[in-house]
């Protein structure tokens, strides 16, 4: 049965949607935030994993999407879905512009350039406080102001994640996806084979930024306040940790990484709250290290996990499982016979 994995995915989604009502509000919130990061991780992996454009401004685009959406509502009073679309369009435009400007850059130069861009966005949002309310944060309108539970947000986040994944999946499976991967492997060879490298690099930037804007727009209308720190480097590092731990070269594994990291972060917080403070003493220097907030160690733990993943399992921790899952139900292809098993030719003849 060839499409078994698709059937399983659909069945699991249906079960999740059906039983979502039973989640506690806290874990539902965690799930919604995980799906927000899932969209971001997938679109970042589209850019960094498929096209090889290692951008550090992805969270900046999310905050551009969020601020654009809310500011348009404040200024013109347009409905929320329309303003979210406007935020996406803004992100596509700015993303395409950034893609165009850094056409000649690659590797570390691109990373530094996009890092600079994200800092400028963050500083500008924090400083222009008459417009954006600065560090105090901009109050936003909710998507479902009258909703008593988080359930509508859960369904919306789920739908957005599913639609984003399907769209991006169609893109990477199409002929264009092939071009994008060709650019990653060797830009010059791709160009020589007839791929319009410049056009596809700009396109990839615009599309990935658009999805970041979508995630940002959703976040803005789910959490009633947005701050400039939404697009800062710590958030970007968190996104990178998610995508790399999951596996940045496939969309579903990046999403899986986002879920894994977000749930583990919250689970560790739970454990820490129950455990109370920890007291360490370094005997040589006589330093007391008091760990009253054990949950702070969550972040360094993920730093270490990222380093270990990069060092020993560069394809990501979820990728092997996913690849195995994708082969479910397919007839097992017997491996081709090894060379030494082939009948040897008689050297004399």
């Amino acid at each position, binding site marked *: 049965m060839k499409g078994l994995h698709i059937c399983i995915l659909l069945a699991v989604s249906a079960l999740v949607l059906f039983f979502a009502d039973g989640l506690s509000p806290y874990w539902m919130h965690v799930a919604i935030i995980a799906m927000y990061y899932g969209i971001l991780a997938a679109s970042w992996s589209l850019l960094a994993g498929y096209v090889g454009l290692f951008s550090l401004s992805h969270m900046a685009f999310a905050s551009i999407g969020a601020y654009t959406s809310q500011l348009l509502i404040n200024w013109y009073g347009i409905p929320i879905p329309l303003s979210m679309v406007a935020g996406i369009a803004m992100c596509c435009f700015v993303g395409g512009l950034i893609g165009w400007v850094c056409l000649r850059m690659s590797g*570390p130069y691109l990373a*530094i350039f996009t890092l*600079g861009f994200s800092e400028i966005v963050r500083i500008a949002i924090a400083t222009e406080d008459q417009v954006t309310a600065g560090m105090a944060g901009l109050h936003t309108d909710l998507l479902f102001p009258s909703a008593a539970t988080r359930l509508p947000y859960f369904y919306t986040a789920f739908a957005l994640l599913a639609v984003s994944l399907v769209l991006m999946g169609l893109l990477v499976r199409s002929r264009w996806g092939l071009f994008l991967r060709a650019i990653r492997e060797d830009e010059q060879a791709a160009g020589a084979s007839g791929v319009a490298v410049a056009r596809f690099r700009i396109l990839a930037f615009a599309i990935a930024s658009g999805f970041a804007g979508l995630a940002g727009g959703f976040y803005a209308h789910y959490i009633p306040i947005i701050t400039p720190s939404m697009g800062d480097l710590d958030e970007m590092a968190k996104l990178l940790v998610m995508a790399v731990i999951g596996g940045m070269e496939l969309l579903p594994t990046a999403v899986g990484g986002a879920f894994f990291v977000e749930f583990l972060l919250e689970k560790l917080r739970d454990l820490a709250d129950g455990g109370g403070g920890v007291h360490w003493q370094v005997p040589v220097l006589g*330093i007391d290290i008091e760990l009253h907030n054990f949950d702070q160690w969550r972040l*360094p733990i993920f730093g270490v996990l990222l380093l270990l993943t990069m060092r020993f399992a560069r394809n990501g921790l979820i990728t092997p499982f996913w690849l195995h899952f994708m082969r479910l139900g397919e007839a097992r292809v017997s491996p081709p016979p090894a060379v030494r098993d082939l009948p040897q030719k008689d050297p004399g003849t």
Partner: protein
Amino acid sequence: MSWDYFFVQAANGAVIGVIYALIAVGVTLIFSILKIVNFAHGDLYMLGGYCAYFVIELLGFPPLAAMAVAMAALFLGAIILERLMLTPLYSDATERKDEYGLIVTFGLAYFLRNSAVIAFGPFPLKPPSFIPGVTRIGNLILTNDRLVAAGIGILLILGLLYFMQRTIWGQALDAVSQSRDSAAIVGINPRRFNSLAFGIGAALAAGAGALIAPTYSLAPDMGVAANIHAYVIVILGGMGSTLGSIIAGLMLGEAETLFTAFFPDPTRALAYQNAFGVLMLMIFLVFRPQGLFGRRHLRME
């Protein structure tokens, strides 16, 4: 707006410029040998500052000796890190080494910054002065700490220049930066020099952190701004050019300080100080990626 104010600001700019140059020189050195941009460099600078602070506070060392201890500790620590984390960069089995270097150093920065918040606390710490008091030169008033920081910083930079240009190890480093394979043919072990370059870069960053700590206090997130300054400088000065980094470091220190001092709206000036440098970085990357003094063979396309 008097001339005295201008001179005081210019002197402060020169001091901070020397510190920036010390950090950026390490980034450039690591880039030219290992071919990666070290995203954790600012965090090594932060660690150096804290290391010196704890050596002073707990072991009772004088500040300058503590700086030397911090530099030695970070030198060794960085070599261990490089051995543990960066060796895949040198094997041909690794695909897309740029990406590997980026992710690993970015992850290292994330780890170091968040660990520092926990280990050292989020509140700023201030080590004792090198020499308390101020020095007056005419109408120019400078704290002794700044003078010491600038003086030692210049000595460290001169030492590095001497090392790079007049010693056999420095020449070997230069050879590895030009061609790893040719260097190996004439008997230089490139792997050893990878470690050496990473260690020296980290030691210089640690020295910068220890020097600036009495003037600006230590904070766990001080590495973020330092990192960005270092990138602005290496892009301005040209990747891989030590002299370029020094000149660009001084230029950036001056430009920022004077920009802040003379910007019409003082509350925004401080906020836009960083943005100003970053904007220069982006403009240079677009129009002159090899920087002012870049060496062509090191330009990475």
